[in-house]
């Protein structure tokens, strides 16, 4: 059956990851089935829980949507984490300095986040395009620069009235908080923004000349030049777009979740975005469901009868094992397909590289 192979390609790693998680739960002395129930209950079982899951989903989706753009351009934008943080800083700046009604503040903080993240992405891009600094190292380095900038601001110029503490700045004025409904923590605005972003990226990559050209740049820089594509400009634009979306995620982290600038405002959601995109095979259409699954695991795991930190690590393990298995299984299948020289072998779920040598 032709549909069985692609299905198996997804199912086998999922089953493997589940088996691994069950083993771990047994190790931790928990009943796996009870735990699974709690996980589902904890993530989508009530309006409050679902709202928490959606809150996590928003930032993951935004970071991942930006990463689709950079990965498609052949760029390993590991620096996405720093771009989220830069967005947080910029949004915090806007929230602290500008006063206005809620609607204006939403727009201004988001704009600030877009610019902050975009600039941070552009920085990695400039290093890559003009300084030949590999974006992996440049991005990682800039992430830590952003982290230490955050810490510096919290302890230094933006310190809490009275004593400086690494716990964060003073909360922002109420008007710059993303509005929520009732006691739920999720902001409808944030969900809409994230959904719009993922749809926009999907159509940009699929339906526009820009997206197509970006793919060409990512797959083969030299051919792209001969198609008359200004490749440097496209690489920089990819960094800016990817960074801006990550920055938007950073905005929502501080205006919709923390309501102040904290030392790690991103909550490592940028890094999670990378896992999501790897699992999605760099395709925008899979981002939303995978991110929802990841968010559900993250939120649901906190309901497990385990200590803090252990619970979240269990979710992390499940995510990590799943992505690892999908990668390894995809590589193994491609290898077998290559060995059998099947002309119409379907590409693995996750290509070895996002683009050509980029």
């Amino acid at each position, binding site marked *: 059956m032709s549909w069985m192979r692609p299905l198996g390609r997804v199912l086998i790693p999922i089953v493997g990851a589940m088996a691994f998680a069950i083993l771990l739960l047994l190790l931790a002395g928990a009943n796996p089935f009870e735990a699974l129930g709690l996980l589902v209950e904890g993530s989508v079982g009530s309006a409050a829980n679902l709202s928490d899951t959606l809150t996590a989903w928003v930032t993951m989706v935004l970071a991942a949507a930006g990463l689709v753009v950079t990965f498609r351009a052949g760029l390993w934008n590991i620096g996405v984490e720093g771009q989220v943080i830069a967005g947080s800083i910029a949004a915090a700046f806007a929230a602290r300095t500008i006063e206005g009604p809620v609607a204006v503040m939403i727009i201004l903080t988001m704009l600030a986040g877009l610019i902050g993240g975009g600039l941070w992405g552009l920085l990695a891009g400039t290093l890559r395009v003009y300084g030949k600094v590999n974006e992996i190292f440049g991005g990682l380095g800039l992430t830590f620069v952003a982290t230490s900038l955050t810490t510096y601001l919290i302890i230094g110029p933006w310190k809490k009235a009275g004593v400086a503490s690494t716990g964060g700045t003073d909360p922002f004025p109420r008007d710059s908080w993303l509005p929520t409904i009732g006691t739920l923590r999720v902001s409808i605005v944030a969900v809409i923004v994230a959904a719009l972003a993922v749809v926009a990226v999907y159509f940009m990559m699929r*339906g526009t*000349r*820009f997206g*197509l050209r970006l793919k*060409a740049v990512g797959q*083969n820089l030299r051919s792209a*030049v*001969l*198609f*008359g594509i200004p490749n440097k400009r496209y690489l920089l634009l990819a960094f800016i777009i990817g960074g801006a979306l990550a920055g938007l995620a950073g905005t929502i982290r501080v205006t919709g979740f923390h309501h102040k600038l904290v030392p790690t405002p991103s909550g490592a959601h940028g890094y999670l975005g990378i896992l999501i995109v790897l699992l999605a095979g760099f395709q925008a259409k899979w981002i939303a469901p995978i991110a929802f699954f990841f968010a559900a695991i993250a939120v649901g795991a906190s309901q497990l009868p385990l200590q803090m930190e252990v619970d979240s690590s269990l979710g992390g393990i499940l995510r990590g094992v799943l992505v690892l298995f999908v990668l390894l299984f995809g590589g193994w299948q491609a290898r077998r397909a290559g060995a059998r020289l099947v002309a119409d072998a379907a590409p693995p779920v996750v290509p070895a590289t996002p683009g050509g040598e980029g």
Partner: protein
Amino acid sequence: MSLELRDIHKHFGPVRANDGINLTVEAGTMHGLLGENGAGKSTLMKVLSGFHAPDSGEIILDGKHIRASSPQDAIGHGIGMLHQDPLVFLPFSVIDNFLLQSPGGLRLDRRSARREFEEVCERFQFSLDPSASTRSLTVGERQQLEIARLLWLGARVLILDEPTTGISAPQRVKLFATLRALAEEGMSVIFVSHKLEEVEELCQRVTVMRQGKVVGHAEMPTPASQLVEMMFGAPVEVEAAQPIELGDPLLRVKDLSVEERLLSIEALSLDVRGGEVIGLAGLGGSGQNTFMRAVAGLVSPAGGEITLDGKQIAGLPYRDLLDVGIQYLPAGRLEEGLVQGLSITEHFVLSDPDTPFFVDWDAAAEHAARAVTANFIKGRADSNAEELSGGNMQRLLLAMLRPGLRLLMMEHPTRGLDIESANWVWSQLLSRREDGTAIIFASVDLDELLRYSNRILVFFSGRVISEVNASDTDVEELGFLIGGKVREQQ
């Protein structure tokens, strides 16, 4: 040391690079292995040197069957290979290159190795500084380093794969002298080339390969025309291109100079008129491609003027030149021309300058399907570029050319194509002349150059050493020119 290869088979995926090769090389001789690009020469030599494992076949050295399943085995048996691009390690010093994977104990004794290196170099009058960085060496010097190393390791069969690519004329003279000296010492030298001139100069026997098979052996001297026929098959009589009325002066290149790492072009001038076809002849890497890339704005010239229709275009990037009607098609169809992973439809969308921001994929697919049929591309609109054969890739590339071009430049328009595809390619190109498009193309196929060009420029080491009218010359003269025979000997 005598060497025999029996019934060697080697395929890469569906490509039969070597299909039942038999070859005998006598001790103390220089044996030429001729064939055009892609004939399977390099693969055969990589099999012999243990770089690739053959699918089947035997290697017999001095009457004994040997297994060269790894380069280490081959070196152990005294078979050493000098690769086309010398396989040296650029950041290392010369002496470290010399020593890498040499036999011996744990500790590197650079001092005594230096002595031995200098001895080998002295024997062949190589002047290499052992402590220099390998990156600072010219290609010719890197070859010398490799030859010295292989001889030091005790190579008795020396394979040279296209060794004259990218080296200067004096270095070539020195290389040939070295090879002659080695053969006199009883070594077997296998000289792989697609350059007739060099094989004639050097070898006692020649084996010719075509499309993965041996098509003949010859004792030298053999008339060049006979070797050419073996390499390319019997000349196919196609009516020569119909001459057409040339248009107004179109492209003017004046005193163009380009500096690249391996090659520089100096003071090159050329005038091209509308509808004219200019063939660029020369050994691979003699400057033909560099020249075209400079005109196309892909390499920035160091000096000189380039004008199109009287407008200065030197220094403009390729994407701007596209808009004034210049287009360039590279030899690496999948490496540089097409994009792996994108469909034929997507290629047409990419190549169309009038594509709107929002792509209408239905219309694009329809357009692509029509183009596929009209250009006899074997494939579907949704086939990915890498699924196409070489001939169909070339058809796709031609189908994507912009309409109303002023100047088309092409590297090796028909390389590796079957005759039918090759003829189709040229019929397409020639029909472009009607609109006044000028064509500049580089080729190593002398027949092609003579048949389709108005004028032929012969390149040698970055200079145009001769410019001839295609109607006033023949294969033999062109062959001599390409070999640099008219150059002023010092």
